């Protein structure tokens, strides 16, 4: 970004992002649908709809049910499949000069390996977000991937297949999301996304059945923000790799909360359904917020609430410096080990 104000750039492993605002997988199509509404090249990155080896039809109606402050969805990973993603969707996204993060999903580690073998060295893909957390499929969903050893081994197999960033997207519906994040880090992930949707349910009392085609769905939107924020905080304290915060971010203030608890970057998801230009607004308002408070860079803001007892009030510069120092200490420890 050439505009003035705070330096918003951020690194996710090998991937340099101009700013920390990404759009969440499944909420922005393949990137071109909203291209006439906002400049997708100005965003930190576009995370595509999850791609699987074969096309998937997705789940039958109903796929959407609005609940108090949230949306339940049961899409079921509907997507065009690897071949059409490569031949049709990727070229369009490249032409828009977006920073592309391809979301990939598989029912087994082998499927993910085959996807990365096919796409790992594809020009223009800056990163891969591995969808380890879909709540709406019978196989290869959040439950299947909620095993630390499975995550670690799978990522270790994926790691050599690409030089692009490897990001693991985690489910919040687990005993310890921090344990999964640590496993991803050990497997070689460059970052983790915390978190995907929460499993939820709603009943139609007139029809006496679920308001979705399947019994449950994934809950997103403002309803989950405090829950997601706590998971993000937990993960940020547990790993050294960058954490990408996600869950109910509707505006810049929400985004800055995630960054204050340690997120290196954030994802705007459900907000794009309501305002297609939401991600661009988050970015503009974030810049304005930081400028108004005199922050020269986002790095100074990031993690300002990560240490217990540290408040963002009154620009606690010392506290901000605490975070990199602690990280350096950890790195030294890691080298010794």
């Amino acid at each position: 970004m050439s505009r003035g104000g705070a330096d918003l750039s951020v690194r996710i492993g090998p991937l340099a992002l101009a700013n920390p605002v990404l759009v969440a997988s499944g909420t922005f199509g393949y990137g071109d649908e909203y291209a006439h509404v906002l400049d997708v090249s100005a965003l930190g990155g576009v995370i595509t709809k999850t791609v699987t080896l074969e096309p998937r039809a997705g789940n039958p109606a109903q796929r959407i049910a609005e609940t108090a402050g949230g949306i339940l969805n049961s899409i079921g990973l509907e997507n065009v499949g690897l071949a059409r993603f490569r031949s049709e969707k990727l070229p369009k996204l490249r032409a828009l000069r977006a920073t592309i993060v391809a979301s990939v999903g598989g029912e087994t580690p082998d499927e993910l390996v085959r996807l990365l073998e096919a796409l790992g060295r594809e020009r223009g893909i800056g990163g891969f977000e591995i969808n380890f957390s879909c709540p709406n499929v019978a196989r290869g969903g959040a439950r299947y991937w909620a095993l630390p050893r499975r995550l670690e081994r799978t990522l270790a197999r994926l790691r050599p297949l690409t030089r692009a960033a490897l990001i693991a997207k985690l489910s919040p519906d687990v005993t310890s999301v921090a344990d999964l994040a640590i496993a991803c880090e050990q497997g070689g992930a460059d970052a983790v996304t915390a978190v995907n949707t929460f499993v939820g349910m709603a009943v139609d009392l007139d029809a006496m059945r679920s308001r979705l085609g399947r019994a449950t769905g994934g809950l997103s939107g403002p309803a989950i923000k405090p829950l997601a924020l706590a998971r993000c905080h937990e993960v940020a304290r547990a790993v050294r790799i960058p954490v990408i915060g996600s869950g109910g971010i509707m505006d810049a203030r929400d985004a800055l909360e995630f960054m204050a608890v340690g997120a290196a970057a954030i994802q705007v998801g459900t907000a794009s359904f309501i305002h297609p230009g939401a991600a661009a607004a988050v970015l503009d308002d974030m810049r304005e917020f930081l400028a108004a408070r005199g922050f020269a860079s986002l790095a100074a803001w990031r993690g300002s609430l990560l240490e217990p007892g540290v408040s963002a009030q009154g620009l606690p510069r010392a506290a901000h410096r605490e975070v990199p120092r602690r990280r350096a200490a950890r790195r030294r420890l890691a080298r010794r080990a």
Partner: protein
Amino acid sequence: MIAPAAEWIQTRARVRAQMDAGSGHQWLELVVPQDFVAPEPGQFVQLLIESPSPVLLPRPMSVASVRERPEGLTLGFLYAPVGAGTRGLTRLTAGEAVEILGPLGRGYPLDQPGTPVLVAGGRGVAPLIFAAQELARHGASHAPRRSEFVFGARDERHLVGLDEARRELDAVGGRLHVCTDDGSQGLRGNVIAALDALEPRLEGTPVIHACGPHAMLKAVARWALERRFSAYLAMESVMACGTGVCRGCPLPRSAARRAAFDASATPSLWGNREYAMCCTEGPVFEAGDLDWEHVE
């Protein structure tokens, strides 16, 4: 089929009027800014009450009228406040602002050669009032085509929008065929009974444009398919985005129109199905597009 508007926008519209349309229905009129593309009959918009809104998502609303007025392009909506979102819309009063995103989806191909037969069920009449308006408008410049309008409802009270439909039809010399389940007005029976009665009197090949409950649309689609008549049905779905991004409004595609999915090769939890999105491929579908057996 009419191509979807390439460039929908999200902007602010101003409420011009809101009034009681009878039997629990409302008529809402919005003035949209100049850069808002005029919708085609059958297309829809997403309406979002400005903060604080009682609901999170915008609500998809079929356009019932488009008029050029001195204050700008005016869109009319006929709706029933059945949920929190639509109840919220009833509280909008003249002069207030509302966010509008559109126009969205594909409309009715009214330029198809043949006799337009508009078939409405209950408040599904909304896009067909607009279709009749559009036929009347074109009738002024082109050779007018006689059109038929079949309007069915539970009872007399639920023939909401009948006067508007009649007014538009008079302008184009169209004929109105009313039917009610209880016989309180017009023919006693449903729209299929009315279509059966109309069939021998049709001039030329009919092209059906319909909107109503899915059960009615299923019956109309089958009626037309049996006779090899063209039929275009405006479908309904719960939606999130309305723009094709969320994949939230699936309708089962007919076997003949499946493309991406090889029945033998595509594993799917729900059998080998393929879905069309109501928002971008519809809401108006050709009868042969959908697998009516599995339309809910």
